[in-house]
């Protein structure tokens, strides 16, 4: 957005509570790699020029990439500036920070969708002897006590964290609710390549049947594995991870109870993946790629044991750590505006918030399926910048009339 504003010669500042790429520096585990390939991180006027386009950036490389973009576009970033409140004034907004106040006509909220780790209320029934860590706090297996680990959540974070903890010799039980299975490589090409080429990632928010639902879909089970291997539930059980259903509750005497719906959760996920691969196959056929790429194939169904465990005694000593990889929510506690719905999410139409001059970026399926990818920021920023410029022009016209 800063780049687009600069292109239109619109005066602006970027307020950052820490350093550029703060959440990447402070809220991610050590081994994390970007789950999109290097070539796919395309920012306006800035792309990948290295010799490993199909690789996945390591955490230091992601931080360096974002920092170098900020430098390349000379973004007017005010670091170590924490916004404490945003409220409407007569002709714009008052932005209070711990480094003084700003008055402006436009506010673009780009503070992220993953500020606070969601943890279910019954987490307070976990026995005190068990360490509890969120995906946001987790750094590496070595920082955990020896012994069993219960990982809650089987989307991108939960599956990756489960894999590396299992490899560290700590036996992992993975609690899986709804999840979206996805092969890393399909017919010889990265799944992200297919979704990009076939237009899946460009699908617009006003083209889908139920945008509310599309925005709540969990993240794909994709990992930036250096060997481009798929990290799905079958890969995890092959490593020795035990699968259980979604955590349904914890009894007062410290027994975790898991839903008996694991088989259906896996069936839903396999079917959803099948539909995506069908779409890709159709697209490849229509576009004459069939003899240029490997033939279609389908991964085997997710294996679920005959009777997955329904309970686990958390007081037995077998589990030493619980990792909550149960999703995130944004933090809008500083936003002093009546623009939130009853679930605490900003009401918006493709990033245009129902308060004049207020915009949102980086939220799930904001304007396109790729809105939460680095690759999605450019198109969303251009669209919102167009809207923002015409809003400013109409205000100017009114003032001068």
């Amino acid at each position, binding site marked *: 957005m800063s780049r687009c504003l600069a292109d239109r010669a619109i005066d602006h500042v970027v307020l950052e509570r820490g350093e550029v790429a703060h959440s990447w520096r402070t809220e991610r585990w050590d081994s994390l790699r970007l789950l999109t390939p290097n070539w796919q991180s395309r920012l306006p006027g800035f792309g990948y020029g290295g010799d490993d386009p199909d690789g996945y950036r390591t955490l230091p490389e992601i931080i360096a990439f974002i920092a170098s973009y900020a430098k390349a576009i000379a973004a007017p970033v005010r670091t170590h500036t924490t916004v404490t409140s945003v409220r409407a004034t007569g002709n714009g907004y008052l932005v209070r920070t711990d480094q003084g106040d700003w008055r402006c006509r436009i506010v673009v909220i780009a503070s992220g969708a993953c500020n606070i780790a969601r943890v279910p209320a019954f987490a307070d029934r976990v026995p005190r002897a068990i360490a509890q860590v969120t995906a946001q706090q987790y750094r590496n297996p070595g920082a955990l006590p020896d012994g069993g680990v219960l990982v809650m959540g089987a989307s991108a974070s939960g599956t990756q964290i489960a894999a590396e903890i299992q490899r560290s010799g700590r036996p992992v039980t993975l609690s899986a609710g*709804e999840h979206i299975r996805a092969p890393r490589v399909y017919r010889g090409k990265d799944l992200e390549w297919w979704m990009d080429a076939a237009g899946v990632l460009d699908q617009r928010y006003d083209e889908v049947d139920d945008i509310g639902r599309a925005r709540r879909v969990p993240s794909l089970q994709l990992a930036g594995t250096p060997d481009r291997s798929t990290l799905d539930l079958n890969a995890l059980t092959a490593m020795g991870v035990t699968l259980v*259903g979604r955590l*349904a*509750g914890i009894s007062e005497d410290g027994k975790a*109870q898991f*839903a*008996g*719906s694991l088989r*259906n959760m896996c*069936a*839903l996920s396999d*079917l959803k993946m*099948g*539909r995506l691969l069908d779409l890709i196959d159709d697209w490849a056929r229509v576009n004459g790629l069939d003899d240029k790429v490997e033939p279609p194939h389908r991964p085997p169904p997710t294996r679920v044991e005959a*009777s997955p465990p329904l309970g686990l005694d958390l007081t037995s000593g077998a589990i030493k750590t619980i990792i909550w990889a149960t999703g995130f929510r944004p933090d809008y506690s500083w936003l002093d505006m009546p623009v939130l719905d*009853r679930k605490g999410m900003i009401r918006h139409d493709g990033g245009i918030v129902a308060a004049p001059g207020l915009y949102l970026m980086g939220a799930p399926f904001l304007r396109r399926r790729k809105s939460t990818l680095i690759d999605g920021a450019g198109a969303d920023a251009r669209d919102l910048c167009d809207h923002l410029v015409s809003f400013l022009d109409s205000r100017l016209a009114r003032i001068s009339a």
Partner: protein
Amino acid sequence: MANAINPAKNGVNVEALIAAREALAKAPEAAQFKWRATCEWKDGTHSHSAVEGYYGLGQEQRHKKTFTFDADHPEVFASEDKGATPVEYVLVGLASCLTAGIAAVAQYRNIQLRSVTATIEGDMDIQGILGVDSDIRNGFGGIKVTYKIDADAKREDIEALVAQSQKRSAVYDIVTNPTNVTVVVN
């Protein structure tokens, strides 16, 4: 598959359900329902249950008539077999809930159903209820539902109907997740 000119006719008023979903999203208090039944002991293990009233959409509601259910245990339990066993009512509840869901999802996805039959079986080791072995639970060890569905759709689409029906089923949720139960004596 059915199409816009010849839409599926499964007898489910999907438009009304979608309208209700939109209305209730705006008025979540109207979505608060209470389901009720009464049960009266007759003799031995035989009881007679009835459902009639329930609460929903902000007021008391009534079924078109009172539905009654006899429950008993079979003769192998030295009972008189005057009705289905309570655990069979649970199976009936699960199968009928999933089947209703299949019809509704099929209607929404414009898939014409020709026949849907479910066979449902619950495994139970009755050493649990007899108190022979406290390590054995009273309830089902597992439940298996087998569907035979003849519909105007591909196999994957039929499987997706059945999967989505489980995802949205109240009884499936009740059976697969714990629920706090409070029993009081007045």
